[in-house]
C-alpha cells in the first residue's frame, strides 16, 4: 500500500528518541489527513510509535516488519 503516502521518512539506524522526534518534526510540516511512512530499525520504535500515536491522536494505519526494518504508516490528525 504505497498509494496516498505524502512523505516517507528513512529513520533506519537512528536510536531513541530520534525516530519519534524526527516523525513529530515531519508531521508538523504536513496537513491533517496526510500520510507518513516511517521506516525504522530501532526495536523500541514499535512501542514508541504506538504510544506516540495514542497520545497525539495521529492514526497508526499500518504496521509491518521486513527483516530488521519496521514500517509504520501514520495518518496525521
Amino acid at each position, binding site marked *: 500500500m504505497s498509494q496516498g503516502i505524502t512523505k516517507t521518512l528513512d529513520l533506519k*539506524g*537512528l*536510536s*531513541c*528518541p*530520534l525516530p*519519534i*522526534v524526527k*516523525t*513529530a*518534526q515531519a508531521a508538523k510540516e504536513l496537513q491533517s489527513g496526510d500520510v507518513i511512512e516511517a521506516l525504522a530499525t530501532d526495536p523500541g520504535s514499535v512501542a514508541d510509535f504506538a504510544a*506516540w500515536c495514542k*497520545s*497525539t491522536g495521529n492514526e497508526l494505519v499500518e504496521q509491518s516488519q521486513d527483516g530488521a526494518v519496521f514500517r509504520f504508516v501514520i495518518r496525521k490528525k
Partner: protein
Amino acid sequence: MATEEMTLSVPVHEHEEHAHKKLVIIAWSGDLDKVWPQMILATTGAALGMETTIFFTFWGLFSLVKDNKRITGENWMQKMVAMMDHPGVDHLKLGKMNFAGAGPVMMKKLAKEHSVASPGELLQLAVDMGVKLVPCQMTMDLLGLKREDMIDGLGEPAGATVMLTESQDAITLFI
C-alpha cells in the same frame, strides 16, 4: 461525618482527559549521564506535543555555556569552578566511572556506533522544536555567568517561583 466530607471530595468526572500537556524538567546535574536523559525526555515531550520547559540550575547550567568558552566567571573562585568543571555540553563528565575522562570518551564512541544522538545534538533539536530553555538567575549570579557566555535561543533567566508556578499543571522531573 468525616466520611461524608471525604465522599464530597471524590472527583465527579471519571472519564476526563488525564493526559498531561505540559512537561517541566529541572536540569540540576551537569553530568553526561544525567544531561543525556534531560535532553532525550525534553525532545520526546516536544514530539508528543507537550509544552516543554527545561529549567537549568546549579551544575545543570553548564550545559548552556557555549562550548568554546573555557573559563567563565568574574572572580577567582567562579573561575576555579569553571576550571574544574569545563562548561559546555560537549565537555560533560560521567557521574559514575568517569575514569579521568576515559568513561565519557567510551560512552560517546558507543553512542556514535549505535547512532544515539549526542546531548549537544539533542539540545539543538530541543531549541528547534520550541522547548523553552530557562536558565536559573541565581546560579548565573553564583557562577558569574553572563548572557554572552551562553548559547542562543534561551528564555529569560528565572527563579524557583516561576518554575514552581509553571509546574503546577505539569509533569515535573528533577534530573
